[in-house]
């Protein structure tokens, strides 16, 4: 069964350093999402792509976060510089947009710890 792939699974970094996360969605899925999940909370959307275009990045802290999906397939989320409050799980999800029947499929996440 096809799955959303993410790497790395775990990342430890020091504050002020740069970090990058990678996501490979399920083949054929045009829509890709990045979520941040703080411990004890539900996921919150950071950015949504439709193919290579950003559909919604209203919750993305653009002073330090950036996201790209250059060829409309895999995607990278970057944080520079990382801050202590960025420690969280970063989830990627993808969907084959099919109207109201759309289902988002989630990857295993990247757990980030900023020291």
């Amino acid at each position, binding site marked *: 069964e096809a799955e959303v792939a993410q790497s790395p699974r775990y990342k430890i970094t020091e504050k002020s350093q740069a970090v990058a996360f990678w996501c490979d969605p399920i083949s054929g899925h045009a829509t890709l999402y990045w979520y941040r999940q703080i411990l*004890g909370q*539900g996921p919150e959307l950071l950015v949504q792509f439709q193919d290579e275009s950003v559909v919604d990045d209203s919750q993305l802290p653009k002073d330090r976060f950036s996201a790209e999906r250059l060829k409309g397939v895999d995607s990278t989320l970057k944080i520079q510089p990382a801050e202590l409050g960025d420690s969280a799980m970063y989830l990627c999800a993808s969907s084959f947009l099919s109207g109201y029947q759309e289902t*988002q499929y*989630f990857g295993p996440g990247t757990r980030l710890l900023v020291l």
Partner: protein
Amino acid sequence: AQTVTQSQPEMSVQEAETVTLSCTYDTSESDYYLFWYKQPPSRQMILVIRQEAYKQQNATENRFSVNFQKAAKSFSLKISDSQLGDAAMYFCAYRPNYGGSQGNLIFGKGTKLSVKP
């Protein structure tokens, strides 16, 4: 603002018994979707069940069923014949439908379900 509230941070159930997880939401929209997602420890989140707001009939998926009360803005999940593999975080989520253009998923804080053998 649209919000999702899960008032039970943790729940416990005996294997083979039934448990109900609560969820309430706040919205002024009339057309939306509701979901329950399961997130097992160190594993990816998966969709358990979905409910369209315009449907009066409660959704069911095998041992999982919902009690959707639109007027009360309540959307509880019932797990029957609980199994050890049901142990996980369960998230209730809401998604508005803006005339065919869908809004973003809004999640509650989750309920951690433990299953006792």
